[in-house]
C-alpha cells in the first residue's frame, strides 16, 4: 500500500481517466486505475470521471459505493484480509479473526492506531483446502494460526 501522499491534482486524475476511455464499459477500469494510483478514489475524481463519461456525479458515486473494493479514504500501509467464508470457518477462522481484531484493537475495516494495518473481511480467496486463509496486500497465506498471524502482523508493522 502506498504511503499517504499529497492530494492528486485534477490533471493527474484526468490523465488516468483518459487512459481507460477506449474500453467498452470503462467505469470500473477507471475506478481501479484511480485507486491503484492514489490508494483510494478521492472525491475530486468523481466530477472528472462523470464529465469524461457524460454521466452524473451521483451515478459515479452510486457505482463506486456499490462495490466493496473502492475506498473513499486511503487504507493503512498494508491491508490484511481474513477470509470469513464457510470453508475457512470450518477450520476455525472465526476465532482467528476475533483474536486478530482484539490484538489490533480495531473492528473490521478499521486501521491500527499507527496507520500500519487495515483489517478487512473477505469472502473467499479460493484457498478453501488450506484454510484459514488470509491475504496481506496481494500475498496469499494459508493454514493461518495465531503464531503465523502474529508474524504477518509484525512484518506489516502493526
Amino acid at each position: 500500500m502506498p504511503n499517504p501522499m499529497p492530494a492528486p491534482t485534477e490533471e493527474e486524475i484526468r490523465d488516468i481517466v483518459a487512459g481507460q476511455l477506449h474500453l467498452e464499459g470503462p467505469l470500473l477500469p477507471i475506478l481501479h486505475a484511480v485507486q491503484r494510483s492514489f490508494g483510494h478514489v478521492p472525491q475530486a475524481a468523481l466530477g472528472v470521471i462523470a464529465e469524461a463519461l457524460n454521466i452524473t456525479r451521483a451515478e459515479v458515486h452510486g457505482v463506486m459505493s456499490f462495490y466493496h473494493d473502492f475506498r473513499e479514504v486511503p487504507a493503512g500501509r498494508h491491508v490484511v484480509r481474513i477470509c470469513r467464508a464457510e470453508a475457512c470457518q470450518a477450520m476455525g477462522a472465526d476465532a482467528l479473526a476475533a483474536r486478530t481484531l482484539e490484538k489490533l484493537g480495531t473492528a473490521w475495516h478499521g486501521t491500527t492506531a499507527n496507520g500500519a494495518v487495515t483489517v478487512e473481511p473477505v469472502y473467499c480467496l479460493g484457498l478453501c483446502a488450506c484454510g484459514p486463509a488470509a491475504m496481506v496486500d496481494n500475498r496469499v497465506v494459508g493454514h493461518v494460526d495465531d503464531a503465523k498471524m502474529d508474524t504477518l502482523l509484525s512484518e506489516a508493522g502493526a
Partner: protein
Amino acid sequence: MRIWVPRDSAAKALGADAVAEAVAVEAAARGLDVQIVRNGTRGMIWLEPLVEVEQDGVRIGYGPVSPGDVPALLDGKMRSLGPVEDLDWMQRQDRLTFARVGVIDPLDLADYEAHGGLAGLRRAIAMTGAEIVAEVTGSGLRGRGGAGFPTGIKWNTVLNAEADRKYIVCNADEGDSGTFADRMIMEGDPFCLIEGMAIAGLGVGATRGYVYLRSEYPDAIAVMQAALRVARGAGVLGPDVLGSGTAFDMEIRVGAGAYVCGEETSLLNSMEGKRGVVRAKPPLPALEGFLGKPTVVNNVLSLATVPVIFEKGAAHYAGFGLGRSKGTMPIQIAGNVKRGGLFETGFGMPLGDLVNEVAGGTATGRPVKAVQVGGPLGAYFHPDQFDTPFGYEAFDRAGGLIGHAGVVVFDDSADMLKMARFAMEFCAVESCGKCTPCRIGAVRGVETIDRIAQGDADAIALLADLCETMKDGSLCALGGFTPFPVMSALERFPDDFGRQREAAE
C-alpha cells in the same frame, strides 16, 4: 534436470515461492544444472508445496516440502511419494478439463500444444458455426457455474441471433466458498480457457471476449494477462485466429468485490460500468447481453472444457457421467478435511465416498457433522444422506444443489444455527438491493434466527415462511437459494435450533 515447484496460489500460500528460491540457491551451490518449472497444482493441496523431480523421464513427487527440506531433496535423501501419476488420488480420477493442470508450464504455449492444446481449436476452424454448436450440444456439457443449463442450447440461441456484434463473456467471478477450480485452471492452464473462448467465438460468430475475473484472485489475473500476451503474439488471438481468416480477441476485466456479480446479468451490468444489480429476464443475455448485444455468458469450467470436447470428440466426453449429468465434474474438496483439493471424476460418485474415502474424513479427526455442497447458497447435507450420487438430478431430489461443485466439510464442533445465521448475514451483506425478498428478507432472517437462538420457538415457523417467500419471490439465486443452507440446517440438525431453547428454559 527438471524440477517442478507449483505457482498456484494455494501452493504459494503454503510457501512454494520460498521453496523455489531455495531450490535455485541450493542447486547452484551444488553446481547442479537444474531447470525450475513453475507449474500449476496437481490439486493435492494437503501435499503442497508438492515438488516434482524428473528421474529417468518420470516425475517423482515430494511433499509437503519446506525450504529446509531442499538440501536433502537435492541430495536424494528426502523420502519421496513415488511417481506422482501413480498416486491413488490421481489414479482414481478422470481428468479431462484438468488434464494439463499441474503438468505443464502454464505460460509455455509449446508445452501446451505438446499436451494436446490447440488441437480442438484447429478442428473447430475446419467446421461451420452450426457444426461447432452441434458438437457442444452432443457432448451434453451443462453450465458448470451452478445452474447446469445445457451449453449447446445457449450457444445456439446466440448463433441464431442477428446482430452486428456478439460477445463471449467468461464468468470468472468464482465467489463461492469451497470452490477454487476456476482459479486453478486460470493459474495452471490459462491457454485452455483462451482456446475454449476462441472456439465459442468461432461457433456463434463473436469476435470479442471478456473474462470477468474477481479482484480477490491477483495471481490468476497476472497469469491470465501474461497468457493473453503470449496467445496474441503467437496468433492464437487476433485478427486471424491460427490462419482461419476469422478474428477473435479478448481482455480481462477485474471485478470489485461484489459476490452478486457472479450472477450473469449483474456481471453484465458491472462490465458496462453500472452497479452490479440483477436484471430481470427476459430478455436473455443470449439475445440482449453485454451492451445489448447477443452474448454467451459461460463459467470458466464450461469454456475450459470445450477444447477437450473438440480434441477428443463429443461422444468421448458424453461417455462419462450419469444419466443427464454427462461428462466429468471437477469437484473441490475443502474445509475440515484430511485431504483437500481438486478431484475430477465422472458424475455419480456417492457424496460419502468423496468425504470419507477421497478426502479421508476430517483434518481434526473428529466425526463429520455436516457437508455443504455448492457454496454459500448450497444445502447442508447430513451424513445420513451420504449415499446421494454426485449429479444435478440426484442432488435436486435430495433437496440440495451441486452448484460449482464445492464440498465443504464440518466436524462435530460446528454450530448449525450459527451457520444458518451466517447464510442470512452473507445474503444481507451481498444483496444487490433490487428485489425486496432478498434485500429485506435476509436482514429479517438474521433477526429471526437470533430469536430462535434466544429460545423463541414461534420464530421457527416464521423463518420457514420467510424462506418460502425468498425462494419464490427473489429475482436471482442469491435471495432464491439462501433458503437452502438455512432450511437444510434447520431441518436436518434440529438439535442445534432447540438446544439454546432448553438452556433458556
